Structures are given as C-alpha cells and as structure tokens.
C-alpha cells in the first residue's frame, strides 16, 4: 500500500522530471547548434537574446505558427499518433532514473526518483523498444515512400541494436544481480572505494552500450532513419509545424535519457568521489547533523549526475559533427557480426572473471 504523502511526492518528482527533461531537450537544440558551429569554426545562433539564449523560444514560436499539413491519402489518426507516441515513450523512460539519493526531513524520507521499481532497467528497455512505434507509425501513415523507407530503416536498426545493447547490459546485471537502477547505483558507491564504478569492470560492455545508444537514439553516425541526403527527411518528411517539432524534441529527450542511463549504469549515477569522506568531514569537523550532511551530499550528487549527463550529451553532439553516416549494409554488418559477438564474448569474460573471483 503506497501512502498518500509518498504518492504526492512521487507525482511532484515525476512532474519535475518531465519538466526538466523538456527543458534540457529545449536547450539541447540550442547547444547542438552552438557546438556544431564551434566544431566547424563558426559562431552559431547569437541573435535572439544574449548569446542567442532565447533561440529555442523563437524556434517554438516558429514551429507553432507553421501550417499544420496533412498529406493527401495519409491516415490522419495514425499521422497524429506518430509524433505523440515518439514523445510519450521518450518521456516515460525518464521516470525510473534515480536522479539523487534520499533526502530526509525529520521522519520523512524522500527519494529523488520518479518511481522506484525493482525492474527499472527492464522498464527503460521496454519503453525504448516502444519508441520505434512512433517512428514506424509516423513514417507509414505519411503515405510517402521516403517516409516509409526511413521508418523501415528505423525499425530494423532499432531491433538489431537492441540485441547487442541488451547483451551488454546482461554483463552489468551479472555483476550487480539486480535490475533496479537505484540498487545498481548504490552498489557503485562502496565506502572508501569511489573508483568502483562499473566502467572499471565493464569497459568493453560500456563501449558496446555506447555504440548501441547512438543507434537507438537515431543519432549520427547511425541516423539512417532521417538521412537527409538520401531520404529527404526520412520518417518525418511529411511532417510540419509542431508535429515535426515533437519528433525533433523526442530525439533530444531520448539523448537525455540515454545519457542518464549510461551515467547510472557505468559512471556511478549520483555517486561522486570522496562523498563519504566529505559527509564525515561535515559531521565530525563542522558539527553538522548526519541528516543535513547527507542531504547536502544528495544534492551535490544530483548536480554531479547532471554533470555526467551533460558530458554525455556533449559527447553525442561532438560525435554527430565529427563522423559521417554509415552505409546501410555497414550498419547491419556492424550490428550483427561485430557488436553481438563482442557482447556475447563480454558476457563470457565477465562470467569467467566472476567465477575466478576477480570482480564481484
């Protein structure tokens, strides 16, 4: 039985998480342009507001005032459903991510997390696999061959790379023995052993997961579903106005969630180096209460996690403006003949190391 205050707190956290995801996605559009510009020795948007910081607002106004266009012969209901599904699935997966440790007021303990479920990782995977429906339905309902081609590519690509992604994850689960993202995070914070983040135990798994995350979020070098040069705009060729905006937005929310999941799984989530030493220093030398010291550590951990997430988002953009797109057969060959065998090898390696007692 969930108590009412907990339920209220959870709804607040979920609303805040949604808001933050949307805000971050909004400013990702700005950051993408500035980073792209800097990587190419340009200036980037600097007209709207100081340093162009109001650019996302200007974009939103532009998108909202554009014509809502429905192509002839399009299935109208599905045409509307596509971008909605893409957005909903992108936002839903952020609910289980543990953004921070507990915060305590008196006897009330609050989790800085939307919903704590013991199958958190499965939830993320399930929702992410649903995400392809938004793309598929939108591409199919457009009644346009380029859209359909983009949608088919998205479907096959996501299915192919989900396999390797899941297998990379299995190695993490073998170490942690749980699917709960909070548990996985807490296991990476053994007192005095801050460096025991999963990246140390799973370097190969992390690289596989990272590559697959790029493919799952349809980012360059795996952005074949959009593929401006071949498919006009891929699955969103026929979309205009805010429906188009929702697709673009969903991509950035996906990037945010993928960054958060990678930070949690491999980079210690809300843990940061010397957190317990810092807490003990506050308690012993500064005479703080244990509770308030722990709250401070939680808030710092929250900021730390966002730092890691932003670093990953930057990496996503950095790669996008560096690497060219894969050819479709190269994409499939990489997924099926390299990443999946590597992931299986990683599972065997991890199993062997666990049996040998080298990692636990």
């Amino acid at each position: 039985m969930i108590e009412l205050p907990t339920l209220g707190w959870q709804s607040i956290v979920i609303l805040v998480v949604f808001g933050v995801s949307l805000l971050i996605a909004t400013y990702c559009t700005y950051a993408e342009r500035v980073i792209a510009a800097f990587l190419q020795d340009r200036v980037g948007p600097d007209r709207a507001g100081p340093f162009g910081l109001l650019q996302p607002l200007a974009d939103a106004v532009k998108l909202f005032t554009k014509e809502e266009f429905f192509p002839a012969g399009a299935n109208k209901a599905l045409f509307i459903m596509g971008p909605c599904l893409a957005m909903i699935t992108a936002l839903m997966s952020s609910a289980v991510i543990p953004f921070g440790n507990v915060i305590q007021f008196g006897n009330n303990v609050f989790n800085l997390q939307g919903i704590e479920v013991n199958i958190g990782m499965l939830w993320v995977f399930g929702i992410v696999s649903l995400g392809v429906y938004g793309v598929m339905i939108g591409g199919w309902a457009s009644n346009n061959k380029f859209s359909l081609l983009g949608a088919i590519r998205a479907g096959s690509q996501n299915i192919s790379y989900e396999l390797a992604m899941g297998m990379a994850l299995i190695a993490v689960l073998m170490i942690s023995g749980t699917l709960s993202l909070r548990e996985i995070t807490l296991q990476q914070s053994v007192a005095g052993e801050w460096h025991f983040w999963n990246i140390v135990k799973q370097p190969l798994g992390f690289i596989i997961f990272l590559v697959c995350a790029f493919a799952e979020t349809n980012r360059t070098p795996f952005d074949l579903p959009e593929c401006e040069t071949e498919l006009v705009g891929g699955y969103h060729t026929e979309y205009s106005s805010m429906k188009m905006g929702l697709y673009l937005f969903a991509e950035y929310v996906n990037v945010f969630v993928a960054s958060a999941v990678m930070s949690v799984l491999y980079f210690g989530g809300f843990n940061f180096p010397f957190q317990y030493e810092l807490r003990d220093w506050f308690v012993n030398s500064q005479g703080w209460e244990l509770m308030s010291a722990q709250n401070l550590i939680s808030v710092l951990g929250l900021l730390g996690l966002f730092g890691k997430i932003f670093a990953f988002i930057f990496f996503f953009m950095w790669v996008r403006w560096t690497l060219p797109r894969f050819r479709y057969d190269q994409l499939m060959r990489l997924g099926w003949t390299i990443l999946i065998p590597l992931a299986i090898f990683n599972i065997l390696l991890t199993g062997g190391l666990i049996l040998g007692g080298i990692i636990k």
Partner: protein
Amino acid sequence: MQSLSNRAKKLEAKPMTLAERAYLPAIFQGLSITMRHFFRAATKKQVTVRYPEEKRPFSPIFRGLHVLKRDEVGRERCTACGLCAVACPAEAITMVAGERKKGEENLYREEKYAVSYEVNMLRCIFCGLCEEACPKAAVYLQPDKMAPPRFERDEFIYGKDRLVEPVDPSARSIRGIQLTPEQADALAQRMAQ
C-alpha cells in the same frame, strides 16, 4: 593495356590492419581534430563577420550607391542630357529634363536640369557605365555605400531626394571620401560669396 605515358602508378588495396578495422582509433583521431577546432572557435576570435554590427572594409574601387554631385559652389551638375540613361545596360535610370528659371542660377549649373532623376536600385547592376558616360561629372557610384535592404519595392526607386548630395559641405564627400574640415570650410566660404 599498355599506358601511353608509362607513368601510370599501380595501386593495390592493402588489407586493413586490425587498428583500422576496429574503427575506434580513427574515430578518436577525428574527435581530437574537431575538439581542436572547438577550442579554437571558443577562445580565438572567429573569422565570421557579424554583419550589421561589424562591416568588412570596402575595396577602394567598390561601386555602390549612386550620388548626384554638386559643383564647387553647391549647384547641381546634372543637365539631364540622358547619356547615363542611354549608357545604362539595365535601363535603371529615368529622368525628366526641365529649363532653369531666372533666379535659380545658384541651384543648377546649366540652363537645363533634371526635374526628376530616378535610379531603380533593383534593376541597377552597379556597372559604373553611367559614371563613365556622364560629360558633366555629375553621377558617381560611391565606394562606401550600398543600397540597404527594404521591405517595399517602391523604396528601391531612388529619387533626387536621396541621390543628390546634401548642400551642407561638411556632410559632403569627393568620390566618397569625406572632406577634411579645411576643405569643407573653403567650400562653405566660396558658397557664401
């Protein structure tokens, strides 16, 4: 087949090494290159010219917006002979000639003058043939001014109000070069006589 020059180079595709097949070294190389550019753009001054605030210097032989010159004592030089309009390959210039009345000698230098003189800046190709055709040294293309963007097409038809250079000598220029204060003073003294 035997090549004609015998200089053809035989190429053979070597099999890729393991490092090349693994993609990752090449990817990191590429990432480091773009990161260098990132810091260059973030720290050094960028080459981009932020146009309305910042302008590139014009070339000294740049041909920009037209000006109808006045002579040393401030009279309009143009006699509306129409040679510029004839010379104009884009047919951008139109004018209406009029006769100078008594008492207007300080306004127009010759007995005939242009009542209206219009240049359509949307047609003009800024070739400078009007400048070469003018026997009275009246029309010039300024090397430092461009026709600014407007919202209405009408606004690109420049009449005498915008073409004739101002009477105030300090606001005047010779071939686009601003007069020094001494030159402006001399001009003003001569006009006062």
